[in-house]
């Protein structure tokens, strides 16, 4: 029987960064809602687990219109964060999971075996969130889209999002305990235009560049929604078929854009 993993339990952000190093050989645990089942089912056998839940990385701070959200802020404690994060967060799993699962873990999640995860990625994309992380080469801050694309060897410390911007949010769920979100669209009108993103469109959420470009070019919401599925490889999974998602995504885009006013 293999030896149990080494547990690292830093009590400050600096300690967490030091323990993480360049991330090699380290498995990060925030709330544990994604990691524990992998351990229980024997799919992951990590050597070192970095538990960052008590490293002072939690909290929502509002300063000059920019909201800084600590990486280990539980999904259920985002009520002071900007929309559409608040609304999207309300629909993640149920209250017991939301109390423990972190926004950082949600941001870093890739698709589950049978259903999408990372419901907060799309609101963060639409908000143009800035992600501050540590890892090889030290601390850096980057756009959330770049972070989602590639974040191997990075430990998220905080997420900065603009507050008070007009937003739209439309989702499709399966009536079920937890109301799994099978498809959801977030839209935010920022200073430099409208950003639109969707979750449930693949292993991670994606910005809908086709829609954004059409809007920037003066298209109506209806016409812009016609570009919804461009560049996407929609999945068929336990929740819905690719075909169904293809039918519904333009509809959700239209609804979300309609809420922007």
């Amino acid at each position: 029987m293999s030896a149990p993993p080494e547990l690292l339990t830093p009590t400050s952000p600096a300690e967490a960064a030091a323990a993480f190093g360049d991330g090699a050989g380290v498995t990060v645990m925030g709330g544990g809602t994604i990691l524990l089942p992998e351990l229980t089912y024997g799919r992951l056998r990590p050597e070192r687990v970095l538990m960052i839940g008590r490293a002072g990385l939690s909290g929502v701070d509002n300063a000059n219109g920019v909201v800084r959200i600590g990486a280990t802020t539980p999904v259920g404690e985002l009520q002071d964060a900007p929309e559409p994060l608040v609304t999207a967060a309300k629909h993640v799993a149920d209250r017991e999971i939301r109390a423990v699962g972190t926004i950082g873990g949600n941001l870093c999640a890739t698709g589950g075996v049978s259903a999408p995860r990372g419901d907060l990625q799309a609101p963060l994309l639409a908000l143009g969130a800035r992600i501050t992380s540590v890892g090889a080469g030290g601390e850096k801050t980057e756009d959330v889209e770049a972070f989602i694309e590639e974040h191997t060897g990075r430990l998220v410390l905080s997420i900065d999002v603009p507050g008070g911007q007009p937003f739209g949010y439309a989702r499709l769920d399966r009536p079920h305990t937890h109301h799994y979100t099978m498809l959801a669209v977030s839209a935010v009108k920022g200073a430099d235009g409208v950003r639109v993103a969707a979750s449930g469109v693949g292993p991670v959420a994606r910005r809908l560049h086709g829609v954004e470009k059409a809007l920037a070019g003066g298209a109506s919401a209806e016409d812009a929604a016609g570009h919804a599925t461009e560049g996407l490889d929609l999945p068929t999974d336990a929740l819905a078929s690719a075909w169904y998602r293809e039918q519904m995504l333009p509809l959700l885009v239209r609804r979300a854009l309609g809420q922007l006013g």
Partner: protein
Amino acid sequence: MKAVGARLPRYDGIAHVTGRTKYVADQSAQGMLACKGLRSPHHSARIVSIDTSKAEAHPGVFAVATYKDMPKNTVGHLEALGVPADEPYLAEHEVRFKGQLIGGVAAIDEATALEALDLIDVKYEVREPFLDIRKAFDPGQPQMTEKGNVFFYDPYDHRKVTKGDVDAAFEKADVIVKGSYRPSAIEQAPIEPQGCLVVPESDGRLTVYTCTQAMYFTMGVLAEHLQRTPGSIKLVGGTVGGGFGGKVDSATEPLAAILALKARRPVRWIFTREEEMLCGSVRASWHVEMADALTKDGWILGRKVLTLHDAGAYTRFSSYGATKHSFHLAGAYTVPALRTRAYVVWSNHVPTTAMRGFGVTSASFAIELQMTRNADVLGIDPWEFRLKNANRPGDLMPTRKVLEDPSTIDTIRACAEAVGHPLSATYRDMKNDERSGEWLPPHLVDQAAHAKLGDPQEAAR
């Protein structure tokens, strides 16, 4: 008669609310080992070889088992009813569904057992799977058995029910309405995953703590697999944490027992939720094609039905399910001419089994959707269409039984009242009586109790 009509507390109610009810996973025995099962990653493949040597040598592993360790590996659940045994409990030379059990390990704990599974080396020759039962008779499709993809009932390859003259009914009809209905497979999904704990006693007997819904059935199946007398096995049931038909297949007991005997230690095997959902048997998916011959004023003159039932990789109880299905294809209604054919089709899906209303829910699903469709096409209120065609005392069922006491009319009327659906006077005041007057049109004369039943062989032709 103090109990009938009285509101009695559950005898296990206090235990349930104090957390003292014992389920199979709450049972333990000293020295208990953890069991994990090795499952096929392929829908269909030939097994070229199985090498368990590395797993057996892994520290903390007490026993490894494959089909070679099972005294009688292929036991038919319904052999007594003439359904031949066709399923090896542990895969021998092929796997026919993703998740099929190939072997298992008993180790000091679950983590070690899972590590040992990774060390069992199975070589496969992957084959094209057969997954669309609508292609049951297509010779171009992969064939599940040498005799093809369809179960043989002897003397037919299907169950059939024939009543009256269906061709004449379809000739006479004003409207033919067709529908195709495909209820999906459903996993029983009890909150308690299935499992068992097998304790090899010092006197050579086995004590088996099990979640089975069918104790004597499991005892018989287990005794056959192990080639022991039933008297040498003591089954202890506890409260079943939901079964719904999904805990009748004795899925865990044989493997846990063989490992317990090999290791000479108690072995507990509880399915993970993933095993329960993906590998545990399910309610079958069905494909039902129905055509109804109708008069424009709303009588059903006749019905034809073709059913394909997805048995999955092995027969299990499917032949029985399709039989039950066939008897119910008139539904709660009188259909004077009926011709049904139900085929049991094997596929490379998980083997299917019972679930509440086994075989009948698929019939009801198709029938009720068809009835509403019929009403839509005819422009008749769907409640009244059902009442018009409802079976009545004295009507003849497709099984040639004369109905004594159906409650279709009273039930539909009560439901309409309960939901506030208005019925026209004729239907609002309809009585659940033997046919007469406007409810005895010419085409239903031979459905009524006073009709002669005639020669059954004649009817079957």
